[in-house]
């Protein structure tokens, strides 16, 4: 039995979810292999920690209330069904880009304290929509925002340019960043490369 093979079976071994034959096989390997035995010990320890994590129950009566609320929302959504127009969805990103530009243009003449700020939610909405349906693009979302900048200066530039102002960005904060920063897509290779660096810890965001 290959060492790596045993490693991958350890979580199921520790939780006793392997079939008998395989469980026995792993067990025998562990008797003979100190490395895997140590790993099995570590895996067991992790699960013991996790077992202590108790999730609090939802509020009393929560589940008897789910259905009426869904019904209510379904009826509400029906009235706004035009928002789900496929064309609108398809052009959500370009529209959002236009929205950002228009908002920026407007901000110049607006009082900085006005409501016309771009909020985190606006940005988050755009980015999430961009990666919707792409499996496992979680890390991409962040990289996405950083993608327009030279890698080594990501942290510096983000810090310099996107100075958080409460829960909003002001025009000054966004000046100099292109809408590419918010909207440009990364190629698959770029994502892979950056993910790699994130995993190695040589790039922290």
């Amino acid at each position, binding site marked *: 039995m290959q060492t790596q093979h045993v490693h991958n079976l350890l979580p199921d071994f520790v939780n006793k979810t392997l079939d008998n034959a395989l469980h026995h096989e792993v067990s025998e390997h562990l008797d003979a292999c100190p490395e895997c035995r140590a790993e099995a010990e570590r895996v067991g320890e992790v699960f013991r920690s996790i077992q202590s994590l108790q999730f*609090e129950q939802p509020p009393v009566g929560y589940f008897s209330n789910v259905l009426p609320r869904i019904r209510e929302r379904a009826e509400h959504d029906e009235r706004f069904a035009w928002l789900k127009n496929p064309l609108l969805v398809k052009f959500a990103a370009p529209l959002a880009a236009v929205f950002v530009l228009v908002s920026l243009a407007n901000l110049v003449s607006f009082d900085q304290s006005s409501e016309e700020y771009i909020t985190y939610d606006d940005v988050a909405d755009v980015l999430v929509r961009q990666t919707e349906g792409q*499996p*496992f693009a979680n890390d991409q979302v962040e990289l996405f925002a950083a993608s327009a900048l030279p890698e080594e200066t990501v942290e510096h530039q983000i810090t310099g340019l996107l100075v958080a102002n409460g829960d909003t960005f002001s025009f000054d904060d966004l000046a100099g960043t292109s809408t590419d920063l918010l909207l440009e897509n990364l190629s698959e290779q770029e994502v892979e490369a950056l*993910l790699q660096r994130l995993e190695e810890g040589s790039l922290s965001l």
Partner: protein
Amino acid sequence: MSPSSDVELIQRFQQGEEAAFNELVRRYQEKVYWLARRFVNDHDNADDIVQDVFIKAYDALKNFRNESGFYTWIYRITVNASLNAVRRERVRNFFRIDEQFEYEDTGTESPTEKVELQEQRALIEKAIETLPEKQKAVFILRYYDELPYEEIANILKTSVGGLKANYFHAVQKIGEYLKRANATRP
């Protein structure tokens, strides 16, 4: 009378029987809730996801073709909705650059043991939270939902190969995170 199967309920809903949808919600709401809850760690966020998932199901069921089974399908929608919610949160956090990971000083006079338990709990949540998406999904579906790997592969639309490695790496990462965090603990 034995309870209707999912397939029967879906057919009845497609024929216009609204009550059949209600039964599907009642049947799956707890599963959907807990699956979401394990991704987002928070009741309110999990509740949002439950709402989104069933609204989506309500619309999509009208044209649903039982290719993968309702169970797999609703799990898949839930995983995707949960990942989206997490993405949204991560984008928000990304821009909140000054916010560093800090141990909260609870400042209360609760017994040390209780505080330690809370800290440990927060740490584990954080450790799971920092897993890459696929590892996290596999970990949750395998550990909490105890699903077979074949089923996990169906839900995640991926192949079975590699899932065990994903699971092991998830556990390993959680362990490393806890070790690191406990070592730097004040």
